[in-house]
């Protein structure tokens, strides 16, 4: 951020802290332009999510606006908040991605076996499924036996979609552990 812009933004935020609503609006608009450029340079792998992270950053800026100190440059303050939101976004994104990849892997590995192998393996999987805790078993049955979508399974179980994915993921992991145990 160039020094002139930094100073202008800092002045606007200081005025906003004292109650100037117009200055606050100008601050948010100018800050969002600066942050959009900042995020565009860094979020090259997820350009479609830049606006989401920008909005989360603006919400945090709104809540933390009292923490900007008079006489300090605004760049480090603004970028620190933006960086934090971006890190949070990637952490969340990685977690969701890991769950989805794992679910896809489970789906893609099963059909490529001969019918005898599949029957034997199917029996083992079924046995492992029956040994899962009730919630995990119900979710996996909904998704894999009754072929419901995640949304439908979530509605039926009264859970959020992400909770359904997490529960299923844990169930798959447990089944995998049980099968590995049998193989050894």
């Amino acid at each position, binding site marked *: 951020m160039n020094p002139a812009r930094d100073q202008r933004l800092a002045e606007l935020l200081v005025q906003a*802290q004292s109650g100037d609503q117009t200055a606050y*609006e100008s601050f948010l608009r100018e800050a969002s332009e600066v942050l959009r450029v900042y995020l565009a340079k860094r979020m090259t792998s997820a350009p479609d999510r830049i606006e989401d992270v920008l*909005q989360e950053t603006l919400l945090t800026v709104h809540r933390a606006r*009292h923490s*900007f100190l008079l006489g300090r440059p605004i760049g*480090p303050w603004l970028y620190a908040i933006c960086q934090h939101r971006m890190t949070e976004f990637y952490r969340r994104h990685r977690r969701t991605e890991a769950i989805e990849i794992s679910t896809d892997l489970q789906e893609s590995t099963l059909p490529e076996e001969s019918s005898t192998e599949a029957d034997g393996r199917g029996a083992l999987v079924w046995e492992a499924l029956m040994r899962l805790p009730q919630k995990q078993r119900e979710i996996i049955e909904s998704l894999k036996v009754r072929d419901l979508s995640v949304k439908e399974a979530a509605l039926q179980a009264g859970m959020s979609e992400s909770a359904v994915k997490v529960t299923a993921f844990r169930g798959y992991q447990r089944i995998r552990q049980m099968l590995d145990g049998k193989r050894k």
Partner: protein
Amino acid sequence: MSTENLIADLVRDFQPVIRASRPGVLFAKWSAVSLLYVAIGTLFIGTRNDLAEMWSELDSIVHTLLVLSVAVLAATIAFKASIPDRAQRFLIMSLFVALTAWFAWIVIAVVTAGEPHAGHGWKCVRNIVVIALPLGALMYSMISRAAPLRTGTVGWLAALSAAAAADFATRFICRNDHAVHSLIWHFLPVLALSCAGVLLGRVAFRWEGARRSAGAEVQR
């Protein structure tokens, strides 16, 4: 919701705010109160009767100064980190150097010492906890008025600082200077308290939670 609409909602939700205090000011206030509290607490519990002897031994002086430096550095970083800004790399490195030096000092003393003489140190643990709690509570309350981004880390630093300050005070109370005793009944409780501070920080510094609910309100 578009960013334009969000800005419009945030402006509608806008209210003047009281600016947070500078980290330096907070640190000065906390240090003054802590020093006073530690002095009163130490005198109230009762100082060790070989205090003059303690100050004549280099080992003891270095050990005490290491504990104090950990408390001061952790408090400085905790207050600085309560304001979103660039990371204070030099300070963080200094803290890790001081913490490592403190641990290394004790470990070297344990290795070189003869007979282990840990003794029973429950009173030391009690003193550390009793002295650390108000210092920690004060620091948590000061920091919660700012806007720490990494709540767990700041919680850890705040608890480490309060616990190290309490251990600093306890060194004027406890007569057992043996390294094994220092490790088990002083260093480990400080470490345990600081670890508990991570969880406490996540709970105590709820301004982000408030942010989320405000965001939810805005988005409705």
